[in-house]
């Protein structure tokens, strides 16, 4: 093959040209988590294909931290992450109704003022 790319002309492409395709080697996937700054949450940012945590980290570094700021990356095997089924998303729906968990549900200023008014009247 004569290419405009001198790199390609140096490759021994004939060596593999007629061979069968054997792309079928599944590496497992690792979920990658990124921390931008000290004090910030570590958040999921993507996956890498790798065999061991060491390789996963070395490879994740250039895919997920080659720009911008990073203080750390975490990796975990995809198979080691557990999630709810998306069909169970409705279990989260009740939360906003539970006003006793919200600061806005506790308003006592009116009560205090009423008390102070009545107290004065008594004196």
């Amino acid at each position, binding site marked *: 093959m004569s290419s405009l790319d001198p*790199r390609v002309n140096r490759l021994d492409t004939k060596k593999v040209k007629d061979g069968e395709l054997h792309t079928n080697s599944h590496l497992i996937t690792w979920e990658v988590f990124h921390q931008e700054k000290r004090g910030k949450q570590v958040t999921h940012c993507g996956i*890498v294909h790798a065999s061991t945590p060491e*390789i996963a980290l*070395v*490879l994740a570094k*250039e895919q997920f931290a080659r720009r911008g700021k990073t203080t750390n990356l975490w990796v975990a095997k995809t198979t080691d992450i557990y999630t709810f089924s998306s069909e169970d998303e409705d279990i989260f729906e009740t939360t906003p109704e539970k006003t006793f968990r919200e600061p806005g549900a506790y308003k006592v200023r009116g009560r205090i003022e009423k008390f102070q008014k009545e107290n004065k009247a008594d004196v």
Partner: protein
Amino acid sequence: MNNNAVKELLYKMADDALIIGHRNSEWTGIGPMLEEDLAFSSIAQDKIGHALALYTILHDVLGEPHPDQLGFMRKEKDFHCCQYVEQPIGEYDFSLMRQFLFDNAELLRYEALTRSSFEPLAQLARKAKGEIKYHVMHGDTFMKQLGNGSEESQARLQSALNNSWHLALGIFENSEFEKELIQEGIFTGEEELKRKWLEKITPTLEAANLKLPATEENKIVYGGRKGSHSEFLTPLLNEMTEVVRTDIDAEW
């Protein structure tokens, strides 16, 4: 300070970095898996960046020509890179082995230079250390994984190591200024660097199930530091400067 000694040191480091960066960049887009393609490309970019930083010191502090002139306009005999970095990329085993062997030497070199009496170089060494530490982490991790991977990968790495060994030892070719560099506290010298390098790579190679080849002094490939190069450098430089030579006066 002996300016000639410093210049000699900066030129050989810069030339090494430019040429190995150039070679490693040949893998960008055709690496063995996407993630590794990215990692290897970053390593190549870092190296070319280090070359630029070193040429910039030569230009700004020591009055040498502009970095683009130094990188793209010098003749082969003016390059002081070792012959190891000039070699074609070969198959991935050769390139990976070179990345491992060269970057382990580079890390130790830059560590020593963080204490250099030549402050601009010490500053650069402190700045680049993290990048080179990653390069070594990459090389070491892949050596251990692939050396202990399949029969094929172990055999490939062993043969790459055998083919590289006397080329790699050429990294430590003495310059004519070794004494001055050491006396003036500019650099600890190639002999000491080589000793530390052997100490550092030996356990990694053992852990990678690889055997250190026997060293035959007369087979070590020297010459690069004195401007004597393999047959691969001239074509590399011709290719690298193909565009810029089409119009020397142009700003690109």
